[in-house]
């Protein structure tokens, strides 16, 4: 009982902090924090499943989040007909060849007897496959990227509603997680951490460089919102302006708040659904088995549980949730900017949320998501204010004062690190501990 009261108190405190931002600066900022807080909470739920339920160390969250973003582009952007005509099928064929080569190589490895012949055959297959792939792929990519490079230069998407992109983004992440998990968990010892660290960098490299698919660093902007209205449409709608003016609001501010509220309700619905599902799962026989494996793998294995299989399952599930959150985030931003994906922000910050919130506790992850995101946003102005205070006694224009004021922005990472260290040291089970 005290446990619940404590948790409720924590949530109340965090939302009071966010509300305070609303009162002191603006509700636009506060709602912005809530929206990204909701998305962060979902990412934290995904990581918590892997680390909290199963002790899997995923340091490639960034990659799965980015794949979700890719899903949003592929699903919702309108297709570029000309690009499809010049090279679309050829690219697909090239990818099919690549996939076929890899599958054939794996099959060949399994079928042939070990020995030098097997190695040579496999090498030959891979080399031939690679050159065939490049032969098909390179001209097609060149053709696609030549189609109006300033505006498109890529294949575009399927032109479907963006809400559909959320599960598809999750599925893309799940697919990548399957490949990673199958390889890394299948090795004789577990090498998941380095594998996820690597795959995340590779996914970002792909997004940055495969312009035919994502426009690379030229970014995809203007991703359709579908159910959520555009601010400009609201401002142009006489009914909306009239109503808001009647209630005493500025229509421009109101339009952006309404849009944010729409997103907030969509995201809340997703979060609640996921939270309900993961709580149910945790208390089901499946969840009990997961905990049994986590607490004593040897015993669980002796009882005939397929430990690697279960680990793979939960790794895919957690990564899919990260992908889903990634697709939601890209929808919220309305753009995919591969250059902005950085491990500190998209992998390690999520870890801070999980640890601070409480490993193994879904409610803790949600709390951690909101709290840490709030701090991430607010530490910058606080840092600036702090530096202002510190430097107030210094002479204007002194080099140290300028440097301190300029560097205030970097207080953010330092603070996140300190918070993580303090929580680990003094409250190692997090703010809402696992029971």
């Amino acid at each position: 009982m005290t446990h619940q009261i404590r948790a409720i108190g924590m949530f109340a405190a965090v939302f009071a902090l966010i509300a305070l931002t609303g009162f002191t600066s603006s509700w636009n900022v506060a709602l912005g924090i809530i929206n990204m807080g909701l998305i962060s909470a979902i990412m934290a739920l995904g990581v918590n499943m892997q680390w909290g339920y199963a002790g899997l160390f995923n340091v490639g969250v960034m990659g799965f989040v980015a794949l979700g973003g890719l899903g949003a582009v592929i699903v919702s952007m309108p297709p570029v007909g000309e690009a499809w005509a010049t090279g679309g099928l050829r690219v697909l064929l090239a990818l099919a060849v690549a996939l076929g080569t890899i599958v054939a190589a794996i099959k060949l490895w399994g079928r042939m007897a070990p020995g030098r012949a097997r190695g040579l055959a496999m090498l030959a297959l891979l080399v031939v496959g690679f050159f065939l792939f490049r032969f098909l792929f390179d001209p097609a990519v060149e053709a696609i990227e030549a189609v109006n490079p300033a505006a498109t230069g890529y294949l575009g998407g399927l032109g479907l509603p963006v809400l559909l992109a959320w599960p598809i983004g999750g599925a893309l992440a799940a697919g990548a997680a399957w490949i990673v998990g199958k390889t890394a968990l299948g090795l004789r010892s577990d090498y998941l951490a380095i594998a996820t660290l690597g795959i995340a960098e590779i996914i970002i490299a792909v997004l940055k460089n495969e312009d035919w698919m994502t426009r690379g660093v030229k970014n995809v902007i203007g991703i359709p919102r579908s159910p959520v209205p555009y601010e400009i449409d609201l401002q142009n709608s006489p009914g909306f302006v009239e109503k808001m003016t009647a209630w005493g609001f500025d229509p421009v501010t109101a339009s952006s708040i309404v849009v944010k509220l729409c997103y907030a309700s969509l995201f809340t619905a997703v979060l609640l659904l996921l939270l309900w599902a993961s709580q149910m799962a945790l208390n089901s026989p499946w969840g009990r088995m997961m905990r049994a494996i986590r607490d004593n793998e040897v015993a669980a294995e002796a009882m005939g549980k397929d430990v690697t299989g279960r680990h793979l399952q939960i790794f895919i599930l957690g990564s899919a949730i990260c992908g889903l959150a990634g697709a939601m985030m890209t929808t919220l931003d309305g753009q995919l900017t591969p250059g902005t994906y950085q491990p500190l922000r998209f992998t390690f910050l999520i870890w801070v949320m999980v640890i601070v919130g409480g490993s193994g506790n879904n409610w803790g992850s949600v709390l951690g998501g909101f709290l840490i995101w709030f701090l991430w946003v607010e530490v910058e102005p606080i840092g600036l204010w702090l530096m202002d205070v510190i430097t107030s006694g210094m002479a204007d224009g002194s080099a140290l004062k300028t440097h301190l004021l300029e560097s205030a922005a970097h207080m953010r990472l330092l603070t996140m690190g300190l918070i993580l260290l303090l929580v680990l040291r003094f409250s190692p089970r997090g703010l809402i501990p696992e029971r």
Partner: protein
Amino acid sequence: MTKNAWQDDRGNKDRSITNPKPPSDAEPVRKGGKAVKAEGDSPFLIGDRMTGGYGTGANILNDCTVAVEKGEIAVIVGPNGAGKSTAMKAVFGMLNLKSGSVRLDGEDITALTPQDRVAKGMAFVPQTSNVFVSLTVEENLEMGAFLRKDDIRPTIAQVYELFPILKDKRRQAAGELSGGQRQQVAVGRALMTQPKVLMLDEPTAGVSPIVMDELFDRIIEVARAGITILMVEQNARQALEIADKGYVLVQGANAYTDTGKALLADPEVRRTFLGG
């Protein structure tokens, strides 16, 4: 779930981020303690009425006493799980005692760390992982003499004299040696400090009977050189034969204490512990 949140690894076995080698299970006495002059008359080495266990777990030792006189051999025997090895570890300071004391040569050393006890002239050969497998035989011996500042070469020569095979294998990694040879390295490493007391935890575990006889001979040789020996043994009968003093432990407490010969002759001990 463990009580200590920092020890909960959630079953993580990721080799790419954590070293899988087993952690140290010892809870050595903390730094800072000093040896104090002991009152009254007591044996050369005594673990007196020791009570304690690992961490916050249940007590393994209950008012347990083991002692040995200078230059003699004392042997601790008893059934599995009787706390024989724990008693040794407690005497060596690898375990925090809840009550009781350890005294050596007229000094109370209960508060000393294992390193400080090494400096006081105690040496301990654990039952398992008792050599540095990746170090050469000679490096193992050098590590044994880590605290010594004087010339250790004469002592190395003495160890090679006692165990001639080690001289031939001096440049080989200890991990590549056979079980019996490893035990010799382990005993050799402990002798490098020129200890007053040598503590052996089941030195003959897992070696063939011929090697076992050989090892017992060497141990007697060491004792004749004036080194006091405290030893835990599985092969109770053979060990008691060479023992000046024998302790039979049951559930962390003293069950029988007498000279080795007397224990061997005691029908009760014979029936319950020596198999008739």
